[in-house]
């Protein structure tokens, strides 16, 4: 058994199959067969870097561009999702003018960066569902933001010229969120953060699949934490079981559509 069993999970499967034994042999030779914390850190960093490169096209520059876009996407979604949650009275966070403007700016920037289009293209699904549920909204700020996001996402989708990989996942998430909203149990808002955790623990760095929705709901999750604690253990178990099932199905649906994703898993 390797001294570095856990950190080796950071490497893409095909890379590790080809070079894993050699790297481990070298690590053991360098440290006389003993485990080294420094080695663990460097293997983890190398593995994540290799995985990120594999998932983002192979060049370091491309990887950083994609990471920057991902941060922008997450920020935008965090702000906009807060707006939606606020509209439903789920949280008490007010959408300030500055936040709203920054979110709009973020959406426009995302569209200008062509590589982001596949990620942002998933947004219309979420917005469409939200709009259907919230047709009686009086918040112009929210409507403006939603409309602009949908428009930009549509444009990005058209410019990309192909269906985004995340579409099945997003459709499923949207359905779950809608169902949760309709029965007034927005505890399913926890779903995104579970997706993120699952993503992190499987070193699944494909941002289109998990990251966008996951981090975006962080604000909601924090704000609804108190409500969550009021439920019985049985309810929590049921909710957790549902979340795990939905997460697994969503991930499988997305992976099935991507050969590249299957390689880096």
């Amino acid at each position, binding site marked *: 058994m390797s001294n570095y069993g856990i950190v080796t999970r950071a490497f893409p499967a095909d890379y590790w199959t080809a070079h894993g034994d050699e*790297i481990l042999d070298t690590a053991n030779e360098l440290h006389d067969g003993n485990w080294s914390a420094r080695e663990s850190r460097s293997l983890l960093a190398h593995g994540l870097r*290799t995985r990120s490169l594999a998932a983002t096209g192979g060049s370091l520059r491309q990887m950083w561009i994609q990471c920057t876009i991902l941060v922008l996407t997450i920020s935008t979604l965090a702000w906009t999702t807060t707006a939606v949650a606020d509209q439903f009275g789920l949280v008490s966070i007010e959408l300030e003018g500055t936040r709203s403007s920054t979110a709009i700016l973020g959406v426009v920037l995302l569209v200008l960066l062509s590589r982001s289009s596949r990620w942002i293209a998933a947004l219309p699904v979420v917005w469409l569902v939200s709009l259907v549920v919230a047709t009686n909204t009086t918040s112009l700020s929210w409507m403006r933001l939603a409309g602009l996001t949908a428009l930009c996402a549509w444009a990005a989708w058209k410019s990309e010229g192909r269906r985004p990989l995340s579409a099945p996942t997003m459709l499923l998430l949207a359905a779950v969120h809608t169902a949760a909203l309709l029965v007034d149990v927005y505890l399913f808002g926890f779903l995104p953060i579970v997706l993120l955790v699952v993503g992190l623990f499987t070193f699944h760095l494909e941002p289109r699949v998990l990251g966008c929705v996951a981090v975006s709901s962080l604000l909601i999750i924090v704000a609804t934490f108190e409500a969550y604690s009021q439920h019985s253990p049985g309810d929590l178990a049921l909710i957790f079981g549902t979340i795990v099932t939905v997460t697994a199905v969503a991930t499988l649906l997305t992976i099935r559509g991507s050969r590249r994703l299957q390689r880096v898993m």
Partner: protein
Amino acid sequence: MREPTYFILLALHAEPLHGYAVASRAKELSDGRVELTAGTLYGALDRLVDEGQLVVDREEKVNGRKRRYYRITEAGEHATQAEALRLRQALEAAAATIGPLPKAATA
């Protein structure tokens, strides 16, 4: 160029070496200052291969274990020479400014 990268290229100047030998040689050349981990080493080797400064010369099996031997390319040689020149200029500038430098203490 970062110091580990420089010593990796320098280590491969004379002959193709496998990963562990590169790390050992780099440590020796740097008087023990550059102690590469496998993660750092293979990260740098992969990157240098991508940049065309190294190529995989051959693969061998030693005691059933696969080992890749890396060879420096012409581009790698140029990069090493350019870095050595930069270091020499920095050394000369230091000597001209603060006078003769004391000999570095050996490990």
